[in-house]
């Protein structure tokens, strides 16, 4: 009995330490965080449990993988449901991680002491994507085989190291049994360890920053975490679990015919969250799409939280009322210019047909066709709208996100046979 008590108190103590003793009353409001961080944590737990169940019967070989999944679905108790839950939770986690990133960015929750939380959050986001991508191959069906082929070939476009790096990922020049084993090891051993480690750091940093940011720093009314916050969390967790279970009952995870390395489906697409990159690669030189743009993004995202903003503004949604209108303008501008360029390159202007080096015709020229109007737009915001530094950063980020989302939409839904535009 004594032992039991000690054990329990250790576990309870640990769980209670995830939260502070009391939190600001404003932090309880659902629209403060939309519970996105917690949702991601819960999704990770769901994924871990369903993943472990599937791992018992999964065979990581090209001959065995597909059949072991079919047999798991048909012969194990609730096999299909477990796989569906795993699949949809994984897809949802990419979305909720991205929304979480948007939430902390737009509510100015990444500055000062939260700078490192943002950095570890970015690392976690990358881990989630790699996690999802490595899991994508495991069913070894036509969808997964060709998606991974496309994606690793995009990696080959990196200058100098691209081919060696892609061959290292694949364990060969094409996607083969080594690739499957590599991805399996990453997906079920290395990445779980990494994500748990980084999650712990991420949580600890939030705890150190005294929980989530609040909108109004002057209202300091505190409430007890238990039951005020914990009860809300339980409601959110149960609702999410119920939603995913219901969704998984009615919608099956895709499983096409077994992978055939000799027959590429038409069209072949990367996983949906990488379709923005594939769409970009259709229009611009690989060096721009795989090096310049990602590198610029990384530098920009590392730079953002270093800005010294007014401490009063920390936690304020959209920074200011002007911030809101700037975001709306940026979304409209970015969607318009992205769609316009996609149409121009698709129908009127075939840049690769000029007699100049491809890097200039398909690299520099389209880059400036995007950047020049963009700088013009920023100049307009600065002069006419009197936007300050933070508002300009918000505008740039919004433009990047919108542009990526628009390219993803076009790539996922409006590209048919031969990757031509369809309506």
């Amino acid at each position, binding site marked *: 009995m004594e032992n039991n008590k000690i054990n329990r108190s250790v576990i309870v103590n640990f769980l209670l330490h995830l939260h502070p003793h009391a939190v600001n009353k404003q932090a309880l409001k659902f629209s403060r965080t939309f519970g996105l961080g917690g949702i991601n944590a819960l999704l990770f737990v769901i994924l871990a449990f369903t993943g472990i169940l599937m791992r018992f019967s999964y065979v990581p070989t090209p001959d065995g993988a597909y059949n072991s999944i079919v047999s798991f679905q048909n012969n194990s108790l609730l096999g299909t449901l477990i796989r569906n839950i795993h699949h949809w939770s994984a897809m949802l986690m990419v979305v909720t991680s991205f929304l979480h990133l948007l939430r902390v960015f737009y509510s100015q929750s990444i500055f000062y002491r939260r700078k490192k939380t943002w950095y570890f959050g970015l690392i976690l986001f990358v881990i989630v994507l790699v996690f999802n991508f490595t899991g994508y191959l495991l069913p070894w069906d036509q969808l997964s085989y*060709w998606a991974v*082929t*496309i994606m*690793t*070939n*995009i990696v*080959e476009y990196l200058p100098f*190291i691209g081919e*060696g*790096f892609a*061959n*290292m990922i694949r364990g060969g*020049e*094409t996607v083969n049994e080594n690739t499957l084993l590599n991805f399996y090891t990453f997906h079920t051993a290395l990445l779980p360890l990494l994500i748990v480690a980084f999650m712990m750091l991420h949580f600890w940093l939030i705890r150190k920053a005294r929980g989530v940011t609040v909108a109004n720093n002057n209202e300091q009314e505190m409430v007890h975490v238990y039951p005020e916050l914990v009860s809300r969390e339980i409601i959110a967790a149960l609702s999410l679990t119920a939603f995913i279970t219901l969704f998984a009952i009615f919608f099956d995870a895709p499983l096409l015919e077994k992978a055939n*390395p*000799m*027959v*590429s*489906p*038409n*069209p*072949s697409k990367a996983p949906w969250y990488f379709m923005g990159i*594939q769409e970009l*690669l*259709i229009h611009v030189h690989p060096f721009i799409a795989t090096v310049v743009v990602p590198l610029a993004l990384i530098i920009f995202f590392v730079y953002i939280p270093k800005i010294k903003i007014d401490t009063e503004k920390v936690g304020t949604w959209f920074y200011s009322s002007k911030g809101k209108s700037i975001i709306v303008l940026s979304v409209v501008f970015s969607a318009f210019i992205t769609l316009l360029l996609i149409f121009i390159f698709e129908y009127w202007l*075939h840049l*690769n047909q000029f007699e100049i080096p*491809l890097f200039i015709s398909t690299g520099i020229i389209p880059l400036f066709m995007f950047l020049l109007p963009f700088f013009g737009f920023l100049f307009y915001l600065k002069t006419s709208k009197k936007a300050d530094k933070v508002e300009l950063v918000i505008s740039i980020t919004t433009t990047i996100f919108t542009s990526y989302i628009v390219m993803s939409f076009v790539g996922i839904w409006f590209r048919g*046979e*031969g*990757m*031509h535009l369809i309506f």
Partner: protein
Amino acid sequence: MDKKIFRRSFIKKAILAVISLEAGYLISDIFKNKSVKKLNPDLFSAGKSNIFEKNKMYPFNSGKFYLSVFDDGGMLAISIKCTHLGCIVQPDSKGFLCPCHASAFDKRGEVLSPPATRALDIFPITIEKGEVMIDINSPIKRKKGFRKSQLTYV
């Protein structure tokens, strides 16, 4: 001057060392691959050279190439792997068409329409005792497209 090693800095350095060793071990693979491959060429026999007719293309799926024979008897072993994103090209009337993203190539493997920017890779052909042998593990990248010198004659 003797430097003291403290517990914390020691652990930190030890962790860094282990991570760099592990990373170095993995990264060394990137540079290793190519040299190993050249030592043991894997020759694929396409059959006797006299069975191939001029101006025809012969598919060799298991070797992952098409043997293209031209008017003058010159032969080219063209890879079926699209140079854009690695899909498998299909033969059509003009040459090859990639089903994934509609890159088109002519019978010599040169780009007819993008998104591919580079001609299809070729494999070295050698003729031994009248038999056409293809080194399917050493694809040759053609940065400048087709050259007459790439053709192999019996």
